[in-house]
């Protein structure tokens, strides 16, 4: 009796496996054929393989490709900064804080309000650097405060409950913040003031043409990441955070104040999201109460792609995701004759997620968590 049951379940599993294998083969061949067709186009636009699916394809020039790469990298750097917050909270508390996108939105919104005021009284034009520093500091403060309040009000009371409960609560918190911001500031799209010419003009670095704003995004993101890495790996606070992530009870017995460490984790993740919010505002110059939604989900995807709980993984996941959604539509989908490729960014991003989950479910840099750790 038992033998037949086992054989039956084994066959069911293998059916699912066969289906997954088919999806894997389909996705990989799609990518390979797309890339090959793209290469064929680049080498000789007239050869039959290049024109097989998409007779109108023209390929990309080197400068266009570099431009796509730079857009992808700067976009990805922001995903990465937000993803750090998801990853840190997951590492310490083991649940996904879906309201983290709203922390990012709070930073972008604060940046808008402050820069709008500065623009009105002339400081924005007369002393741009000073006002930039002030809006960054303000955004960090507001985002940090949002994240800390969120932890105190919504998540701490649920610390001992099953993980699904804070997860669902976080979705509620997300809706609450979106609607509160809409109620206070209205649903209209708000535009950041014009950036000074010297910042936004195109610059040429190592043959790469890049808008100054994107360069600023990359620099600030790199600095923030370096600072965070130093904090987590080298300081006493960082060691306490890692200890709490590994075993809260033992960490407490080692004299670590667990509650304070968890608040610190939220605060640091919030600060990173605040920085990302300002960068987003400077780059796209528009913000609404829904700004946090899609970047939040994408950043969560980036955290999973990089291996959730792993900080360099979150950053690299963000950058890969940003580059993939910027490059893949034109390199893989366009040669395959898919219509309207530039609107498929989001589809590409989530396909990347599916690919990672199919081939390496723990993420690119994910650690294999032993049963003992997760118990």
């Amino acid at each position: 009796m038992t033998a037949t049951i086992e054989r039956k379940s084994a066959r069911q599993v293998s059916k699912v496996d066969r289906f997954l294998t088919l999806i894997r083969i389909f996705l990989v061949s799609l990518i390979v054929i797309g890339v090959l067709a793209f290469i064929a186009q680049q080498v000789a636009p007239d050869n039959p393989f290049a024109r097989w699916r998409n007779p109108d394809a023209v390929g990309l020039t080197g400068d266009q490709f570099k431009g796509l790469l730079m857009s992808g990298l700067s976009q990805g750097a922001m995903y990465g900064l937000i993803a750090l917050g998801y990853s840190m909270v997951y590492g310490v508390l083991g649940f996904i804080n879906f309201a983290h996108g709203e922390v990012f939105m709070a930073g972008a919104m604060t940046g808008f309000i402050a820069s709008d005021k500065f623009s009105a009284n002339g400081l924005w034009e007369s002393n741009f650097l000073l006002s930039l520093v002030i809006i960054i500091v303000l955004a960090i403060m507001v985002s940090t405060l949002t994240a800390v309040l969120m932890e105190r009000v919504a998540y701490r009371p649920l610390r001992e409950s099953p993980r699904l409960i804070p997860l669902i609560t976080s979705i509620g918190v997300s809706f609450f913040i979106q609607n509160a911001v809409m109620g206070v500031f209205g649903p209209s799209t708000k535009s950041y003031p014009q950036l000074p010419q010297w910042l936004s003009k195109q610059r040429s670095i190592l043959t790469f043409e890049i808008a100054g704003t994107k360069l600023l995004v990359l620099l600030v993101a790199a600095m923030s990441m370096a600072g965070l890495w130093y904090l987590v790996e080298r300081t006493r606070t960082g060691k306490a955070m890692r200890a709490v992530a590994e075993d809260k009870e033992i960490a407490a017995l080692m004299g670590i104040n667990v509650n304070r460490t968890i608040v610190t984790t939220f605060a640091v993740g919030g600060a990173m999201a605040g920085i990302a919010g300002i960068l987003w505002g400077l780059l796209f110059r528009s913000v609404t109460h829904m700004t946090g939604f899609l970047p939040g989900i994408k950043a969560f995807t980036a955290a999973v792609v990089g291996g959730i709980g792993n900080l360099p993984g979150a950053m690299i996941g963000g950058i890969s995701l940003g580059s993939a959604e910027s490059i893949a539509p034109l390199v893989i989908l366009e040669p395959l004759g898919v219509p309207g490729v530039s609107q498929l960014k989001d589809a590409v991003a989530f396909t990347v997620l599916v690919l990672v989950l199919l081939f390496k479910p723990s993420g690119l840099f994910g650690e294999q968590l032993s049963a003992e750790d997760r118990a």
Partner: protein
Amino acid sequence: MSHLMEIRDLKITFGGLDALSGLNFHVDEGEIVSVIGPNGAGKTTFFNAITGLVDPTEGDILFDGESILGLDPHQVTGLGIARTFQNVRLFPNMTVLENIMVAQHCRTSQLVLGALLQTSAFKKEEREIEERAKEVLAFFGSRLVGYRYDQPAFVLSYANRRRLEVARAMATQPRLMLLDEPVAGMNPMETAELTALIGRLRSEWGFTIVMIEHDMRVVRDVSDRVVVLDHGVPIAQGSYDEVSTNPDVVEAYLGRPAEDQA
């Protein structure tokens, strides 16, 4: 003179079951006391109560004359009580050195700002923490030094993990150390070695030790006093020789001879 730790009428109930009932216990500065008893006697619950992991139903726990009831575990550690676990619980993904450094958390004071600004006070403190960590690890001879410093704890052998856990407890700079079955699962040679180390923990580092142990040779060799628990009640107390011949103790461990039960 007051005792270093004193426990008065401690009672802990888990959903109607008395894990401990009416436990009175004390330990003086510089003593090594063993707590023995059959499985389920409440020994680990007793440690959990002292370290603030479970709240007693009744009774009081005094450390250095002050009640420590209701304190959070990190505050208890701050007062100078450290413990190890029956099933070793390290931070497996942190290195050997980091495991020890993090244990000095409550003894250090530098905040994030100091780290970001790289103040000299921060650097000095980091250096001191590392020095102290190495000093603690040197206590175990050559087993946890040198190239071991930067290995993650999960690669260590079982015996080395146990040693590291003791080292981590030492690094919190306690006055009272609670060891939960320190030699469980070790071979006779390792057991003898650790037994000697427990003696040196008192003579060289000045720790007072309360130890739960099932290995009677270890209990005999190191303890000044033995307390026997059975079903949450202390049934005997005294030197090893007194306790080991006490009829109640023999009964708790081996049961009553068949003819007495009639």
